[in-house]
């Protein structure tokens, strides 16, 4: 080991801690704001649904708003549970566990993706059923689903360029750690 540790210029600790604390506060603030937004939107939809029920509005409109409400709730819960998981990697886990979690995190299709798909379909159903919004059913499918599919394609391209190499590297390290009974450890 090089003993040039003494040459390492000291990090400005006060500044670092202050930045880290600021980031923690920003995270907590953003997380809270997003959750408040989802819960407020949900309450508004509940309020509208209740008014519609007592106002003898057509049942299809009510179902449309219930779809919006569930979509909002699913988005809110997904954000609450997964934002931190994606923002911060826990480096204090055993290396093998960390790598396996990284490989899973960068998997393009996961079980929780289905929840996001479900909420997108609920928004589609909400837009389609709530004809009071004045949207044409066919155009909703063309534009809304078109935008969803296009976003998914762009997301996959970004994943392929940025995250697939990270996932491949993590998988390769996992194979190396797990494969103790072969000689892959040496690059010869």
């Amino acid at each position, binding site marked *: *080991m*090089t003993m040039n*540790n003494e*040459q*390492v210029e000291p990090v400005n600790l006060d500044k670092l801690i202050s930045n880290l604390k600021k980031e923690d506060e920003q995270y907590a603030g953003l997380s809270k704001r997003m959750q408040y937004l989802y819960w407020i939107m949900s309450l508004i939809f509940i309020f509208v649904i209740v008014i519609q029920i007592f106002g003898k509005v057509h049942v299809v409109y009510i179902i449309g708003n219930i779809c919006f409400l569930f979509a909002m709730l699913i988005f809110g819960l997904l954000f609450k549970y997964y934002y931190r998981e994606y923002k911060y990697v826990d*480096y204090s886990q*055993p290396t093998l566990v960390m790598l396996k979690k990284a490989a899973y995190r960068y998997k393009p299709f996961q079980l929780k993706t289905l929840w996001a798909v479900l909420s997108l379909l609920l928004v589609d159903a909400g837009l389609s059923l709530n004809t009071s919004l004045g949207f044409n059913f066919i155009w909703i499918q063309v534009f809304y689903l078109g935008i969803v599919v296009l976003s998914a394609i762009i997301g996959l391209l970004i994943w392929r360029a940025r995250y697939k190499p990270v996932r491949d590297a993590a998988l390769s*390290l996992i194979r*190396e750690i797990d494969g103790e009974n072969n000689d892959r450890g040496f690059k010869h």
Partner: protein
Amino acid sequence: MLDKEEKFNQILAENKDRIKRICGYYNSNVNDQKDMYQEVLVNIWNSLDNFRGDSSMNTWIYRIAVNTALRYTGNAYKHMKLIVNADTQNLSTVLDDENYEDKLVMEKQLSGLQNELNLLSVIDKALISLMLEGLSMKEIADIIGITESNVKVKIHRIKTHLKTKLTGQRYDNE
């Protein structure tokens, strides 16, 4: 009860040198060492909320340092270097033989060792860096997340390989 900042400062005060040493293993360049050191500190801060005392503080710190080293170079894992020098305290344990120590301090052989170490895979480099820190097989196993016997097998294989390469002799693998 210590708040997060006090806990962080306490951990840093007790482990600063250890973290710097680990950073030194993976970077020959002082600026890179400094960047990685800062990266480790950030990861310690972000992992502090998850520390429940299930593992010792030593193991916890080494995990963060090694995991940061693995992630530090991003996709360029394979370019990660392991830097050793003659004054590395536990260098003789790599070859398991007191007689080699004198030879190793000779620049030529040290350079050979350096080259061979850098031909090792990333995980093997991480294992060697922990061994150079004087950690037990059990501690290394806790850090990497594999069994103690698995660590022994891997380190034995690395040592055998290095001996073979440095002495030019053939050592039979088990």
